[in-house]
Protein backbone atom coordinates (compact mmCIF):
# COMPACT_ATOMS: atom_id res chain seq x y z
CA UNK A 1 0.00 0.00 0.00
CA UNK A 2 1.21 3.51 -0.81
CA UNK A 3 0.06 6.47 1.21
CA UNK A 4 0.62 10.15 1.81
CA UNK A 5 -0.89 12.60 4.27
CA UNK A 6 -1.16 16.24 3.25
CA UNK A 7 -2.29 19.28 5.22
CA UNK A 8 -3.57 21.76 2.63
CA UNK A 9 -2.49 25.42 2.74
CA UNK A 10 -3.45 28.57 0.82
CA UNK A 11 0.10 28.80 -0.52
CA UNK A 12 -0.02 25.26 -1.84
CA UNK A 13 -3.39 25.91 -3.54
CA UNK A 14 -2.04 29.15 -5.07
CA UNK A 15 1.07 27.28 -6.28
CA UNK A 16 -1.16 24.67 -7.90
CA UNK A 17 -3.23 27.44 -9.54
CA UNK A 18 -0.04 28.81 -11.15
CA UNK A 19 1.30 25.40 -12.13
CA UNK A 20 -1.99 24.22 -13.63
CA UNK A 21 -3.19 27.53 -15.08
CA UNK A 22 -6.53 27.14 -13.24
CA UNK A 23 -6.96 30.57 -11.65
CA UNK A 24 -10.66 30.25 -10.88
CA UNK A 25 -11.13 32.71 -7.97
CA UNK A 26 -12.94 30.06 -5.89
CA UNK A 27 -9.42 28.68 -5.30
CA UNK A 28 -7.72 32.02 -4.61
CA UNK A 29 -10.13 34.52 -3.08
CA UNK A 30 -12.03 33.83 0.17
CA UNK A 31 -14.48 36.70 -0.38
CA UNK A 32 -15.29 35.58 -3.91
CA UNK A 33 -15.68 31.96 -2.80
CA UNK A 34 -18.13 33.00 -0.06
CA UNK A 35 -20.08 35.12 -2.58
CA UNK A 36 -20.85 31.93 -4.54
CA UNK A 37 -21.93 29.96 -1.48
CA UNK A 38 -18.68 28.22 -0.52
CA UNK A 39 -17.25 28.29 3.02
CA UNK A 40 -14.19 30.16 1.70
CA UNK A 41 -11.57 29.32 -0.89
CA UNK A 42 -11.32 25.62 -1.66
CA UNK A 43 -8.58 23.39 -3.06
CA UNK A 44 -8.75 22.37 -6.70
CA UNK A 45 -10.26 18.92 -7.12
CA UNK A 46 -7.44 18.32 -9.57
CA UNK A 47 -4.88 19.08 -6.84
CA UNK A 48 -6.42 16.28 -4.76
CA UNK A 49 -6.52 14.00 -7.80
CA UNK A 50 -2.91 14.94 -8.59
CA UNK A 51 -1.79 13.75 -5.15
CA UNK A 52 -3.94 10.62 -5.46
CA UNK A 53 -2.41 10.00 -8.90
CA UNK A 54 1.10 10.36 -7.50
CA UNK A 55 0.33 7.80 -4.80
CA UNK A 56 -1.27 5.53 -7.43
CA UNK A 57 1.80 5.82 -9.71
CA UNK A 58 4.04 4.80 -6.79
CA UNK A 59 1.84 1.78 -6.07
CA UNK A 60 1.78 0.90 -9.80
CA UNK A 61 5.56 0.88 -10.03
CA UNK A 62 5.96 4.15 -11.93
CA UNK A 63 4.08 6.77 -13.92
CA UNK A 64 4.63 4.91 -17.19
CA UNK A 65 2.61 1.93 -15.92
CA UNK A 66 -0.51 3.93 -15.02
CA UNK A 67 -3.25 3.31 -17.60
CA UNK A 68 -6.37 4.78 -16.02
CA UNK A 69 -7.27 7.09 -13.16
CA UNK A 70 -10.71 8.18 -12.06
CA UNK A 71 -12.46 9.82 -9.14
CA UNK A 72 -15.47 11.77 -7.98
CA UNK A 73 -14.87 15.02 -6.06
CA UNK A 74 -17.20 14.23 -3.17
CA UNK A 75 -16.41 16.93 -0.61
CA UNK A 76 -14.63 20.27 -0.59
CA UNK A 77 -11.15 20.57 0.88
CA UNK A 78 -10.24 23.88 2.55
CA UNK A 79 -6.91 25.20 3.87
CA UNK A 80 -6.09 23.48 7.17
CA UNK A 81 -7.73 20.19 6.18
CA UNK A 82 -5.51 17.13 6.51
CA UNK A 83 -6.21 14.44 3.93
CA UNK A 84 -4.79 10.91 3.89
CA UNK A 85 -4.38 9.47 0.39
CA UNK A 86 -3.93 5.74 -0.09
CA UNK A 87 -3.63 3.30 -2.99
CA UNK A 88 -4.33 -0.38 -2.24
CA UNK A 89 -4.21 -3.39 -4.58
CA UNK A 90 -7.75 -4.44 -5.55
CA UNK A 91 -7.07 -7.22 -8.02
CA UNK A 92 -4.65 -7.74 -10.92
CA UNK A 93 -3.63 -4.36 -12.34
CA UNK A 94 -6.21 -2.54 -10.25
CA UNK A 95 -5.84 -0.12 -7.36
CA UNK A 96 -8.49 1.18 -5.03
CA UNK A 97 -7.74 4.78 -4.08
CA UNK A 98 -9.00 6.68 -1.09
CA UNK A 99 -8.71 10.21 0.24
CA UNK A 100 -10.11 10.82 3.71
CA UNK A 101 -10.02 14.06 5.71
CA UNK A 102 -9.34 14.59 9.43
CA UNK A 103 -13.01 14.02 10.25
CA UNK A 104 -12.97 10.64 8.51
CA UNK A 105 -15.01 11.93 5.56
CA UNK A 106 -14.04 10.73 2.08
CA UNK A 107 -13.20 13.71 -0.13
CA UNK A 108 -12.71 11.51 -3.20
CA UNK A 109 -15.07 8.62 -3.97
CA UNK A 110 -15.32 6.17 -6.89
CA UNK A 111 -11.53 6.55 -6.93
CA UNK A 112 -9.59 3.85 -8.75
CA UNK A 113 -6.61 3.26 -10.99
CA UNK A 114 -5.52 0.60 -13.46
CA UNK A 115 -1.97 -0.20 -14.47
CA UNK A 116 0.00 -2.64 -16.55
Amino acid at each position, binding site marked *: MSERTVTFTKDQIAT*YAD*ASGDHNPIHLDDDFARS*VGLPGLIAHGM*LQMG*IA*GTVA*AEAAGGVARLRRL*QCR*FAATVVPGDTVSFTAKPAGPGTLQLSAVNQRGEPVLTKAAAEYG
Partner: protein
Amino acid sequence: MAGRTYPAVTFEIEPERAAAFALAIGADPAAGVPPTFAAVYSLGATAPQLFGDEDAAIDFAKLLHAEQEFQWSRHPEPGEKVTSQGRVASDINRRGMRFVSFETETKDARGHDVCRSRALFVIRS
Protein backbone atom coordinates in the same frame (compact mmCIF):
# COMPACT_ATOMS: atom_id res chain seq x y z
CA MET B 1 -24.98 21.06 -26.66
CA ALA B 2 -24.42 17.29 -26.73
CA GLY B 3 -22.26 16.31 -29.68
CA ARG B 4 -20.61 19.68 -30.12
CA THR B 5 -16.93 19.27 -31.01
CA TYR B 6 -14.33 22.02 -30.71
CA PRO B 7 -11.27 22.61 -32.90
CA ALA B 8 -8.13 20.68 -31.92
CA VAL B 9 -5.57 22.52 -29.82
CA THR B 10 -1.82 21.81 -29.83
CA PHE B 11 0.07 22.07 -26.56
CA GLU B 12 3.81 21.84 -26.03
CA ILE B 13 4.75 20.10 -22.80
CA GLU B 14 7.52 22.42 -21.67
CA PRO B 15 9.85 20.50 -19.34
CA GLU B 16 10.00 23.39 -16.83
CA ARG B 17 6.20 23.58 -16.68
CA ALA B 18 5.82 19.82 -16.16
CA ALA B 19 8.47 19.95 -13.42
CA ALA B 20 6.74 22.89 -11.68
CA PHE B 21 3.47 20.97 -11.84
CA ALA B 22 5.13 17.89 -10.29
CA LEU B 23 6.45 20.00 -7.40
CA ALA B 24 3.00 21.58 -6.90
CA ILE B 25 1.43 18.16 -6.28
CA GLY B 26 4.34 16.84 -4.22
CA ALA B 27 5.64 14.51 -6.93
CA ASP B 28 9.25 13.93 -8.00
CA PRO B 29 9.89 15.93 -11.21
CA ALA B 30 12.40 13.22 -12.23
CA ALA B 31 9.61 10.60 -12.25
CA GLY B 32 8.31 11.84 -15.62
CA VAL B 33 5.39 14.03 -16.67
CA PRO B 34 2.86 13.62 -13.82
CA PRO B 35 -0.23 11.64 -14.91
CA THR B 36 -2.62 14.42 -14.00
CA PHE B 37 -0.62 16.96 -16.01
CA ALA B 38 -3.25 15.72 -18.49
CA ALA B 39 -5.47 18.23 -16.66
CA VAL B 40 -3.26 20.84 -18.36
CA TYR B 41 -2.32 19.36 -21.76
CA SER B 42 -5.75 17.81 -22.48
CA LEU B 43 -8.51 19.31 -20.31
CA GLY B 44 -6.85 22.69 -19.69
CA ALA B 45 -6.08 23.09 -23.38
CA THR B 46 -9.64 22.39 -24.52
CA ALA B 47 -12.13 23.24 -21.74
CA PRO B 48 -11.73 27.03 -22.20
CA GLN B 49 -13.40 26.56 -25.59
CA LEU B 50 -16.46 25.12 -23.83
CA PHE B 51 -16.44 27.77 -21.09
CA GLY B 52 -16.09 30.54 -23.69
CA ASP B 53 -18.82 29.17 -25.96
CA GLU B 54 -21.76 31.57 -25.77
CA ASP B 55 -24.13 28.85 -26.98
CA ALA B 56 -23.05 26.62 -24.08
CA ALA B 57 -23.86 29.48 -21.65
CA ILE B 58 -21.88 28.00 -18.76
CA ASP B 59 -21.81 30.21 -15.66
CA PHE B 60 -18.21 29.72 -14.56
CA ALA B 61 -18.94 30.99 -11.03
CA LYS B 62 -21.49 28.21 -10.52
CA LEU B 63 -19.37 25.50 -12.09
CA LEU B 64 -18.16 22.54 -10.04
CA HIS B 65 -15.80 19.85 -11.27
CA ALA B 66 -17.68 16.75 -10.08
CA GLU B 67 -15.81 13.81 -11.64
CA GLN B 68 -12.70 13.19 -13.70
CA GLU B 69 -11.31 10.21 -15.55
CA PHE B 70 -8.14 9.81 -17.61
CA GLN B 71 -7.04 6.85 -19.73
CA TRP B 72 -3.57 6.74 -21.21
CA SER B 73 -2.24 4.77 -24.16
CA ARG B 74 1.11 6.13 -23.01
CA HIS B 75 2.33 9.12 -21.03
CA PRO B 76 3.88 11.99 -22.99
CA GLU B 77 7.53 12.95 -22.61
CA PRO B 78 8.73 16.39 -21.54
CA GLY B 79 9.23 18.56 -24.62
CA GLU B 80 6.60 16.69 -26.64
CA LYS B 81 3.83 18.43 -28.59
CA VAL B 82 0.38 16.91 -28.23
CA THR B 83 -2.93 17.81 -29.87
CA SER B 84 -6.24 17.57 -28.06
CA GLN B 85 -9.83 17.82 -29.17
CA GLY B 86 -12.76 18.40 -26.84
CA ARG B 87 -16.36 17.30 -27.27
CA VAL B 88 -19.56 17.68 -25.27
CA ALA B 89 -20.60 14.07 -24.69
CA SER B 90 -23.82 14.88 -22.85
CA ASP B 91 -25.66 17.86 -21.42
CA ILE B 92 -28.64 17.20 -19.19
CA ASN B 93 -30.70 19.00 -16.56
CA ARG B 94 -31.73 17.15 -13.44
CA ARG B 95 -33.12 18.38 -10.13
CA GLY B 96 -32.44 21.99 -11.09
CA MET B 97 -28.81 21.36 -11.91
CA ARG B 98 -27.07 21.00 -15.22
CA PHE B 99 -24.63 18.13 -15.84
CA VAL B 100 -22.19 18.53 -18.71
CA SER B 101 -19.92 15.64 -19.64
CA PHE B 102 -16.89 16.85 -21.61
CA GLU B 103 -14.54 14.38 -23.28
CA THR B 104 -11.13 14.93 -24.81
CA GLU B 105 -8.85 12.94 -27.09
CA THR B 106 -5.14 13.70 -27.10
CA LYS B 107 -2.79 12.48 -29.82
CA ASP B 108 0.94 12.81 -30.40
CA ALA B 109 2.67 14.43 -33.37
CA ARG B 110 2.31 11.18 -35.37
CA GLY B 111 -1.41 11.01 -34.68
CA HIS B 112 -1.17 8.14 -32.20
CA ASP B 113 -3.36 8.05 -29.11
CA VAL B 114 -1.91 9.45 -25.89
CA CYS B 115 -4.80 10.18 -23.55
CA ARG B 116 -8.57 10.23 -23.35
CA SER B 117 -10.35 12.09 -20.60
CA ARG B 118 -13.86 12.63 -19.34
CA ALA B 119 -14.84 15.47 -17.03
CA LEU B 120 -18.25 15.85 -15.43
CA PHE B 121 -19.11 19.46 -14.70
CA VAL B 122 -22.10 20.41 -12.56
CA ILE B 123 -23.52 23.90 -12.98
CA ARG B 124 -25.59 24.89 -9.97
CA SER B 125 -28.68 27.00 -10.58
